[in-house]
Every structure is written in C-alpha cells, then in structure tokens.
C-alpha cells in the first residue's frame, strides 16, 4: 500500500551529495575544496591574468543567477500546472498538458531558445533577458511537469480518501494534503533540474545576454587569453553548482523530518 520509498530518477543535473555519506573524503569535498584551492592558487601565483579575469566576471555571475532563479520560478509554476494537467480527468486540460510536454521534449533546448527568443522578439519586443527567461522557463517547465506528476502520483491514495472523507474538496486536498507531501519526493529531482538549468543558462550567452560565459568570451576576444579565461569560467561554474548541490542536500534533509522515527 505505502509508496513512501519511491525515488524519482530524472535528468542530468549534478549529483546531489548523499546526506548519509559521513566520510571525510567525499566526492563533494574533494571537488569543492579542490576547486577553491585551484582558484586561490591561480589568483595568487598568476594574478596577471587570472585576477583580471575574475574581476571582469561578477556582472556575468549576477546575470546568470538572475536568469536561473527567474527561469526556475517560471518553470515551477508551469511544471505544477502541467503536472496537474497530466493527472487531471478533464480531457482538454490533460491533452493540453501532455502536448506541451511532448513538444518541448522533442526539440533541442538551443533550438527552442532561438525560436522563442526571436519569435518573442518579433512579436512583442521584450528585453533580451526577459525573452531568455521565458524561453528557459518554458522548456524546463515541461521537465518539471513530469517531476510534479510523478511526485503527486507517489502519494498513497489513502491520503486523498482520508482528506475527502473529512470534507475537503479536490483542490483543498491537493493543497493541504498531497502537495506538501509530494514536495519531499519532488525536491531531489527539482534540485537536479535547478542545477541542470543553471548550467544550461550558459546557452543564453548566444542570445546577447551577458551571463558568465558571454562576459568571459568578451574578455577572451579582447585579450586573446582563451585558455586562461575558459579555465576560470569552468572553475566558477563548478564552484556554484557544488555550493548549490550542498544547499539542496541540506534542505532535503530538513524536509524529511517527519519520516524519522
């Protein structure tokens, strides 16, 4: 009867560290402290050009974060709607959600980015960053939809029946009983999608949005220091994703408090 041990496996996000792993040399620690050590070493041993590169990037980091957070927000909203649509008995809503997911999953992300970006640009002239956010959110919303659907389905039907029998209607049941529980199952794959999305925001550098990668390219094309610049960019992406994956694993730990005996 109980479906509490369901694990949703989705996607290609960075691995979220296993909170049970108590060893001193975890893969996360080796990568994280290794990354910091290398960045520090490069800045101190060869401040020219590495210090210059690092000084050039903060604007780009901010843009990357802005695009990531705004896109994930949009993706979560679209994902929730799509996920509810996929389990809905309303034929129209269900079909619309399924079609959205099928279409988005069948087109490469970069192609969708170009398409939405230029389509939006031509139709309603929105700022570059907004177009990029809408495009990213729209694509990731489809993946989130599947995550939400799986998370909601993982909750035992008995929970719904108990809620209905008390007098809650379907949407109250979803809001007060199902989603708060599904969230715990959903969080790990959402976390993975979040990190995958952060990495994929590097694609928006092609769309005249000055994220980390685009700032790096600007620096490299003026200084011709391609190797050094991309080294630094790789290290910075790595550090960000490592910190995020750690935060997510802590959050996951906290959310599971009610499962502990």
């Amino acid at each position, binding site marked *: 009867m109980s479906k509490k041990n369901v694990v949703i496996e989705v996607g290609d996000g960075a691995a979220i560290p296993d909170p049970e792993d108590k060893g001193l040399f975890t893969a996360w620690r080796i990568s994280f402290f290794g990354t910091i050590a290398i960045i520090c070493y490069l800045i101190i041993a060869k401040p020219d050009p590495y210090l210059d590169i690092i000084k050039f990037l903060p604007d780009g980091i901010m843009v990357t974060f802005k695009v990531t957070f705004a896109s994930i927000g949009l993706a979560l909203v679209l994902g929730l709607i799509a996920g509810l649509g996929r389990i809905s008995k309303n034929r129209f809503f269900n079909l619309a959600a399924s079609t959205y997911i099928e279409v988005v999953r069948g087109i490469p992300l970069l192609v969708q980015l170009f398409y939405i970006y230029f389509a939006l640009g031509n139709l309603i002239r929105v700022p570059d960053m907004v177009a990029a956010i809408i495009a990213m959110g729209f694509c990731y919303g489809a993946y989130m939809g599947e995550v939400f659907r799986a998370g909601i389905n993982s909750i035992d039907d008995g929970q719904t029946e108990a809620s209905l029998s008390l*007098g809650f209607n379907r949407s109250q049941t979803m809001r007060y009983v199902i989603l708060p529980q599904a969230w715990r199952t959903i969080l790990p794959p959402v976390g993975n999608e979040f990190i995958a999305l952060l990495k994929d925001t590097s694609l928006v550098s092609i769309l005249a949005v000055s994220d980390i990668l685009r700032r790096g390219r600007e620096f490299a094309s003026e200084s011709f220091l391609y190797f050094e610049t991309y080294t630094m960019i790789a290290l910075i992406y790595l550090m960000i994703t490592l910190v995020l994956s750690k935060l997510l694993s802590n959050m996951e730990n906290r959310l599971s408090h*009610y499962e502990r005996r």
Partner: protein
Amino acid sequence: MNAVNPIITIRNVNKFFGNFQALDDVSLSVDPGEKVVVLGPSGSGKSTLLRTINQLEKISSGSIVVDGQEISDPKNDINRIREEVGMVFQSFNLFRHKTVLENLTLAPIKLKKEPEKEAEKRAMALLDKVGMVDKAGSYPVQLSGGQQQRVAIARALAMTPKIMLFDEPTSALDPEMIGEVLEVMVTLAREGMTMVVVTHEMGFAREVGDKVVFMDEGKIVEIAPPDQFFDHPENERTRTFLEQIL
C-alpha cells in the same frame, strides 16, 4: 413503533466496476444512534457499500439519502455531506506530514474556520478521550498501528460528524492492539453515535451491534439483530460463513 426518520436510507443501489457488479440491488436504512455491523466474506462488497455512503464510490443506480440529502443529487454539496460523515480506514491514512494534533485540527481550521486555539483545545480533549494526549506532538510514523488508528478515530470526530463509518478498523493491527481500538469504538457507541462498522470482530458485533447485515456477492443476504443472527441464522450462506469463522 416510534416514527424516527432514518439518518441513512439506501434504496436499490447498484454499483458496477466496468462489467463487474460489486453491489446488487442493495437496500438498507440506519436510524439515528443505531449501530449496524456489516459482515461477509472478502470481496462481497462491504467496503464498496460503506464507501458509497460518503460517495468515495459513486453509485451506478439507486438512491442514498444521508441526513435528508440525496447524495447523488448534484444540487447538494457532497463536501458538506462528508463533513457529517466520519470515516475510519483499515490503513489509518493519517496525514504523514502533520503531527497528531495537526491531523485533528487541519479540517476544523480550514473547513469550519474554527480559531486555532479553539480547534486545539477540542483536539486535545478528543486525544484525551482516545488516550493519546502524550503523543500530540508526534508524527504518525512514530506511532504503533493501534495508536494511529485511535488518532484516526479522533481526527474523524474532530469534525463532529453525525455518522461514523468504519472499514475493518482492526484488520491491519497486531492482535495485541485490537483491544485498545475496539475499546474506543465501544465508548463511542455508548455515547450514542450512529455507526456503520465493517469488521470481523464477532465479539464486538454481538456486544455493540443493533443489527447485523450479512453480504455475499454484492447482495445483502440477511439483516437481523445480533443474537438472532449468530444463534439462529436463517440463510444457508450465513450459516456456512459463521461455521467457517467461529
């Protein structure tokens, strides 16, 4: 003859799952304060019957009137009717993400707009009644089956229902925990609650039941007071059933 109106009236109800008929022309009425025990072999439609009363299963045809309202009439708000009908499940179904106390207060606060303090006070009184006050802050996973079921009963009572439905409330419990749950149910019966109970606990059926309903293959085969039912069963199938379980 006293002329009380039944609080539940089930008339000629049929229920199909696809081509399979789970309820076959079932009629039954329950008076206010009456305790009805439903017996029958596994798969005979006992759960289905119980679940049609609060429309967890929609009936295919017939009529069910609960407290004066026809439940399949779309003009009547099924959610309001369900507030009047508490249900206790075999698998407890406590809200896993809520503490024991929150399990009891959630519905009164959200549905009846009861002030939090008020709801908590009533919840503590109910927990006291089922002997679970000291576990108010625990989560369901931290409780034994018997404790979870007692909390589940209290949660249903928190909505002050007029009718309580029990679907094999002790079937998932270890034998040593059955007594504590039955005890709560007996107390509730003494207080005059209207109860419809599907169970295999014959002692409970005899002690508490006003009438016993025996089902087989989706039909109600026999309705009788417990003494008559157990000592002088009329129907052939009832006799076979009783021989098997007693």
